[in-house]
């Protein structure tokens, strides 16, 4: 990797860390569990790296191993994305204001 690219990526990293601390410290403790499951979903962003790996052609003498590793990584990252977003939605849907429904089995 060229050093200019590396510097550029570090630049983005540093700004994102500061941004993260700013916005996440505003999340009330009421929502900390959905915040964590939502973070799980977003850390599934590794899907993008896994997609590229799983889509590698089997040439250049590497065989299929890289693509298989990519597919397994993709599966785990997808569990995070799908599991994380849906369980967060399920939880947030339970947070209601006064006059809740009379069901609650």
């Amino acid at each position, binding site marked *: *990797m060229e050093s200019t690219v590396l510097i550029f*990526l570090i630049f983005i*990293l540093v700004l*994102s860390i500061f*941004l*993260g601390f700013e*916005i*996440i*410290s*505003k*999340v009330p*403790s*009421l929502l*900390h*569990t*959905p915040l964590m*499951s*939502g*973070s799980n*979903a*977003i*850390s*599934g*962003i*590794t*899907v*993008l*790296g*896994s*997609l*590229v*790996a*799983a889509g590698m*052609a089997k040439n250049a003498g*590497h065989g299929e*191993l*890289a693509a298989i590793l990519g*597919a*397994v990584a*993709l599966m*785990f*990252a997808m*569990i*995070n*994305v*799908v*599991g*994380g*977003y849906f*369980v967060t939605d*399920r939880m*947030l*849907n*339970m*947070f*209601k*204001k006064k*006059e*809740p429904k009379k069901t*609650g089995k």
Partner: protein
Amino acid sequence: MNISILINLVYILSAIAFILGFKLMSSPESARRGNIISGVGMLSAIIVTLIDPQVQRYDYIAIGILAGTAIGLLLAYRTPMTGMPQMVGLLNGFGGLASLLVAWAEFHARSELMGAGDAAIVWLAAIIGAVTFSGSFIAWAKLEEKFISGKPVMYNGQQIVTGLIILGMVVAGVFFSLYPAGEGAYWHFAIFAVLALALGVALVIPIGGADMPVVICLLNSYSGMAACASGFIVQNNLLIVAGALVGASGVILTLIMCKAMNRSIANVFLGGFGTPVKGEALAITGELKEVKASDAYLMLEAANRVVIVPGYGLAVSQAQHAVRELMEEMEKNGAEVSFAIHPVAGRMPGHMNVLLAEANISYDAMVEMDAVNPQMDSVDVCMIIGANDVVNPAAKEDKTSPLWGMPIIEAHRARTVIVMKRGRGKGFAGVENLLFFRNNCRMLYGDAKTSLQALVGEFKSARS
């Protein structure tokens, strides 16, 4: 338009969606919308990556996506709310594993193109991923109490073993970075990957079940850092932005939990935490005063302002719905009822709020510790259900107590305190609770659910 420009434009939009998603989480009213926006951002990023020219075949991609989606949906809808800490722990681990595998795949396919710097990044991504994976697996098993007990596992020379593992990882990493395309590179990779897996186990196994919330938060942060590190390998901005947001979130939550337990991170990971603290015998004055449900009813019936302090014991006896019924009865009776929630009330940050919300308790009745303490003097009855250490005044009054300095809900300042408790046992910290011996405190022994139902019954029969 150039494909790579299109892809990167969409990545910018995805980054905005993630940031907005977290921002909208600042209020329960907008949080659900935020989560959906964030999800749309993720979906767009996935779709646009599929047209990346580096992607040349779709068979493995289809398998990976389908399998992951199916398992993800199953987890999302099958996991009970009490199981949220385990699920988050498991997902932390999967995030780490994905990063480890991506690092491996990249190394396998491109080792001959790698310089020392690239190899060092592969090393970093692989070890963060591996530690996150094995550490999360142990945390999950401890919470489930499946393969290992929740008790801390200690052995002699623990820190030396951990130190040796780290040393080995670094040495293998240095060789790997110097000769990434060399003969031994695969061996070096295997050695540091296995050592990193061992490190995750070594770090988490000595930590007791009571401290798992801190560990889960920290591993949540690691899973973000792992995504960040993979972003450096594949040179993808979006991975770095998203990973950094998650990393920051995990660190913030870790600090909040440590503060609420009055511990430093170092103390959680190195000290003999989680093991019961042997305090010196305290001079306790007063005696335990037991009441029956019928007497407790009279106190609640006369109260205008009631604060309920729930602990994990409430969830253990599945009493959330019973407590909501009692709340409704007391509100019909004209009382103002709220729940005071300590940051460590559940098994992870915010867990108690979710458990109460599940039982249809509205979120504006849930009050944070810092908001409720200043008003405690005007509370008629403070009812404690399945909580112990978090209401122990020893934290404020007894300097010899292991709890000294821990922030507590100051229940003892209410006019009357009713404690619902299964038996006479001590809390997690193994400390006698001074509150129980106070003059204004009454003990209502028995299963929380049964006691609550008895109280609801009293209210109902009085009305009819």
